[in-house]
Every structure is written in C-alpha cells, then in structure tokens.
C-alpha cells in the first residue's frame, strides 16, 4: 500500500487560483516522481513514514454549526486567523487589521497581492531535498499571505490557528503561509496546530518567513496535534541584512510529528535564534530537524532545544550548522539536551557542523540524561515527595527554555499546558501552575 492523495490533488485542480497553476503543475511533476522517504533516507532515518501509507481525502468545509471548539487553544490578546481542515473560518477570525498589516487568502488576493505572492513564494525553500514540499505546492489550492509594511511595528501578535476536526475518513490538509516583513518591520506571529479528536489526518504545513533588511520577527510554532493527527511541516526563513528571527517551537503529542526548521542567513548582520521544546509520551514520536545556513559573513545564531521523553516515546533531534565559504566572522552556538524519564524512552540526537570558512566561532553540544538524583534528594530533604520532586525537575528542565520566550501572555498560557505533561495527578502540579 502506498500513500494515495489523488482526491486532495483533484480538489486543488478545481479550486486553486489560476495564477498558481504553473507552479502547481511543476510541483505535481516532481511529486509524481517522489517516493516517501524510508529508513534508508539519511534525513528520515529515525522517523518512519509508513503511517502515511493510506488514502487521504480532501476534507469538506464543515457547516457553521459543526465548527470545533476553540477551548484548547490558549486565549491571548492577538489578531486571530482560524482555519478548520484547511478552510478559512471568517466567523472565528478577526477581519479588521491595523495599518501596515495585510492578511489575505491567496484565493482573494488582488492583482498587486498576487504579483507579490508570485514573486516571493518559494524564495525561502530549498530547490530539492524535502519530499513533502512538492506535495504541499502541488496541492496548494489556497494559502495565506501575512505581510507587514516597512517600518511598521505591530503591537499585537498574530495568531494563526490550524485545527483539524469532524471528518471520519482519513484526510489531508496542506496549509501554506507566506509571511513577509518589510524593511525594519517588527512582528510576533504564532502558528498553532491542533486537532479536536485525534482523528486520522495528515497535515503537511509549509511556512515561509521573508525578513527584509532590519526587520525583526518573533515566530512561535506550536504543535499540539494528538493521536492519529500526523504532522509533517517545514518552516523556511530567509533573513536579509541585520534581520532578526527569534523562533520557538513546541512539540506535544501525536503518533508522528516531523518539523523541519531552516534559517537562511543570506546577508551580513542577520541573527537567528531557534529554540524549542518537545515532550513526547506514550508511544508518540516527535522529530525536529533544524538547519542554519550561514551564507553571509558577520551573522550570528543561537539554538537551544530541550526534550523530555517519557514512557515508550521517541524523539529525534538533528541540528545542522552549515557555514558557507564566505561566511567569515560567523558565531553559531547549538545546544540540545534531553531527559529520559523511562527506560523504554528513546532519543536520537545529532548536532552537525559543516564549516567551509576559517574565521568562525562555533560551539555545539548534545546530552542525554536522566533526572539528577542529587537534585531529587535536595527537594525531598525539604519535605517534597519524590513524585512531586520529579515533576518539578522535569518541568524546570524545559521551563528554562520557555522562560526565555518574549511573549509573556503566551508564556503564561503555555506554562500549565507543559506542566500537565509531566503528571496526570493534578496535586503534583499545584506548585507549578
């Protein structure tokens, strides 16, 4: 059996805007000759895609009385754009935007916007290599453009919510976001992925971040899908001169989740910070592949990913730093620390340095450990039970990364959601939430 996605492609053929047609057809040809990666594919060595071998339908738009509850999505003061099964939900979304912010569906783009999308779309993507990018492009019946005008500093974050719900047959969603910041623009954007019922679904989400000269973006990618709601996605950033990207990824749940995060530092003075937390448990599988492409000189990057891997779950982390020949005076640091809280948990971590310039400063490190006995004893020596001590220490291990995020309202909303991953007994969480 192989993956059958014909229905999804047929739907795109019917609904996609005409000006995307050429791009889609090229991608379709590539996808037709692409086979799903296997364990022999180096970049997919530890993540099995066999679960994707089924027939996926293109999900219909749910009637307005069948819209899923938004309860599970943290409420923060933000401009909301909500999509259910890939369809835009105007009734759940904001429609008034501040000056300098343009949010538009590809299907509703005017000529000027369509021209802009045509020029920018795909700029941040690699030409070859990722098997699911051509699928996203071929199935792209729509997408959303978020564009921030030069010199605009947005006060409110933008929260893009992708929910899957309410369809019994396995279905596939191909979200696409083009986020472009003009020169010296500043914005905070959250992409939130969640499912309402852990139903069999496949989300293949591609986001491109285009950061012009001097712009600054705080980007959060929160993956909350559970159960059979599988996710394969990519974030591809292109950083211009003196542009700053701070990103934070959170991975919780689901049988299989794979996120590729690629930052291309193409002009000098650019800075990328890639942080993340993953917390698989049960039999969940979470895989983060990150790449820092240091193309230009005088760029800096820092990266901190931490995971707590419980029960029989598995995590994969691959952090690649690629320093091109012209990227002199690069400074790059990567740290990946993992905590295994069960004998059956597994993590495969691999930091990779590939350096072709001679005047650079790079550091990387990865650790895999269990809870520190001395710290457990210290907490117990103050009367705290062993169970609560372990929860506090596990939470503290990842909370260090959460604490470094800048959006306080989101941080406070995420705190209890993270803490509850470490204990089913709420009494053990009372001092953390």
């Amino acid at each position, binding site marked *: 059996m192989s993956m059958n996605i014909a229905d999804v492609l047929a739907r795109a053929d019917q609904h996609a805007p005409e000006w995307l047609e050429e791009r889609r057809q090229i991608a379709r040809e590539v996808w037709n000759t692409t086979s799903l990666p296997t364990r022999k594919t180096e970049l997919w060595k530890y993540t099995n895609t066999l679960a994707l071998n089924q027939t996926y339908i293109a999900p219909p738009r749910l009637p307005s009385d069948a819209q899923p509850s938004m309860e599970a999505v943290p409420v923060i003061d933000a401009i909301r754009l909500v999509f259910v099964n890939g369809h835009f939900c105007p009734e759940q979304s904001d429609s008034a935007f501040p000056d300098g912010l343009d949010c538009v569906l590809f299907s509703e783009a005017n000529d000027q916007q369509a021209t802009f999308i045509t020029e920018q779309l795909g700029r941040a993507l690699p030409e070859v290599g990722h098997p699911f990018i051509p699928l996203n492009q071929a199935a792209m019946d729509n997408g959303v453009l978020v564009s921030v005008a030069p010199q605009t500093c947005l006060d409110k974050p933008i929260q893009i919510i992708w929910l899957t719900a309410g369809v019994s047959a396995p279905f596939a969603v191909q979200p696409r976001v083009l986020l472009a910041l003009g020169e010296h623009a500043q914005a905070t954007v959250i992409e939130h992925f969640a499912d309402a019922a852990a139903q069999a679904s496949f989300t293949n989400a591609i986001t491109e971040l285009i950061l012009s000269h001097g712009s600054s973006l705080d980007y959060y990618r929160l993956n909350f899908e559970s159960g059979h709601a599988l996710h394969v996605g990519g974030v591809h950033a292109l950083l211009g001169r003196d542009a700053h990207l701070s990103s934070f990824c959170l991975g919780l749940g689901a049988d299989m989740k794979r996120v590729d995060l690629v930052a291309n530092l193409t002009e000098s003075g650019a800075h990328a910070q890639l942080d993340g937390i993953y917390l698989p448990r049960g039999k969940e599988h979470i895989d983060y592949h990150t790449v820092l492409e240091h193309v230009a000189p005088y760029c800096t990057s820092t990266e901190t990913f931490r995971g707590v891997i419980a029960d029989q779950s598995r995590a994969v982390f691959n952090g690649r730093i690629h320093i091109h020949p012209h990227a002199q005076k690069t400074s790059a640091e990567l740290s990946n620390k993992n905590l295994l809280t069960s004998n059956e948990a597994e993590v495969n971590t691999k930091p990779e340095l590939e350096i072709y310039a001679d005047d650079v400063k790079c550091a990387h490190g990865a650790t895999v450990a269990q809870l520190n006995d001395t710290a457990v004893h210290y907490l117990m020596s103050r009367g*705290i039970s062993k169970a609560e001590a372990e929860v506090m220490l596990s939470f*503290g291990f990842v909370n260090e990364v959460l604490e470094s995020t800048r959006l306080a309202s989101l941080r406070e909303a995420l705190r209890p959601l993270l803490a509850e991953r470490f204990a089913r007994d709420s009494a053990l969480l009372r001092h953390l939430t």
Partner: protein
Amino acid sequence: MLTIDNLHARVEGKDILKGLSLSVSAGEVHAIMGPNGSGKSTLGHILAGNPNYEVTAGSIQFNGDDLLAMDTEQRARAGVFLAFQYPVEIPGVSNMEFLKASVDAIREHRGLDAFDAVTFMKRAREAAKVAGLDQSFLKRGVNEGFSGGEKKRNELLQMLLLEPQLGILDETDSGLDIDALQVVAEGVNSMRDASRSFVLVTHYQRLLNYIAPDYVHVLAGGRIVRSGDASLAAELESTGYGWLEGEVA
C-alpha cells in the same frame, strides 16, 4: 530529641563513621568540630537521608522514632532540616515555587492549612530580609547562579520558613564572609528556643563566636573523641587538631 547510638556508616565502600554516639536534647546547640575527613559532613548527610550513604550499624532515634526507617521527605516533615554545604542549583524551578511546595508539604504533615499565596509571599519576603537576600532571589531559579554566600543565605531562608525542630548546619560557615556569617548566626539565634535544637558542623571556631554552643564535640576517625563546653572550641583554635593523632590511633 535526637539519640545517635554507635553509628557506623560508609560511602562508596569506604567506612567513614565507626561508632559515633551523640545525644541532643530539646533546646540545645551542639557543635561538632574536627579535622578534614573525620566524617563531620557524613553525619549531616545520614541524618537527612542521603541515599549515597549506607548505615552499616547503630541506630538513630528522633523524638522516639527510628529515623533510619524514614524516607528523606518524611524526616523533613518530622522536623529535620539539613543546611547543605553545597546547595544544589535547580534552574527552571523558581525559588518561590520550591519554597511554597516545601512549606505546604510540611504544614500538611502537621495538620495545618496551606498558606494562601499572599500570606506566603509576605512570609517569604520577611524571611528573605532576615537572610539578607534581595526579593529578586525569590523569583530566580533555585540557587541558580547564586554566589557561595547567597546559597548559604538561601539555606537559612529555607530554614526560617520551614521552622524545623532540629537544624543541622553542615559547614555553613565555609566560604562565608564575615557579614554573611553574622547574618546566618543571627538567623540561627533568632530561631533558638526551648523546643528547637541545632547541630553545627564546622571546621573552625569562628562560627561559634556568634552562635554560643551548649556542647562542643570533637569528631576524629569516625567517632567522637572528646566532648566539652564552649571552652573546648577555643582550646582547639589554639592547639589545632594535631594532638588528636594519638587519640585516634
């Protein structure tokens, strides 16, 4: 309150304590002095239930209960507090969360209601003031990036809030400047009363200039080789520990 009888203990296969006996009554302050490697710190770790230390013989009674049969957290709840020589850094867990969890656990054991957040915050701030720690230390990770002296002050802060029956200070004076030493001593003195006891483990007499002990014991070769009143500490300061060699052998 505390009766240690013929205690033998080892760590990493090495015998450290070889027949230590000590009796501490309510309200007393005992100082345990001795040369490096004599087993002073081992005693504190065993009282607190550190799993790396193995008791091979002897007994410890605390208020009539078998202390060695109790888990670490049970001992803490029963009123035993060890101020660590090397407090552990726990980034990601705030001092405040840690203190609240500790105090709640101990009050629950004593059948008392948990403090509400506001009351607790007030108490924690007061204790921080006594310990000479700025309020900002309550929000930081537990001991995270604290200097040696700040860590010791944080131990005092915990002791003030947990109100133990028996406080064991394991070389709390080591690495402290004179100001911090006075703060810690004042903290201990403020807690002294007829029902609370202290065991001060120290290498130097300096701490005892600020906390007047009722008894001083000299530990050498894993046993108490001499006991006396506060004047023994002064004597040790002038004679050193060299004279012990004959006694241990």
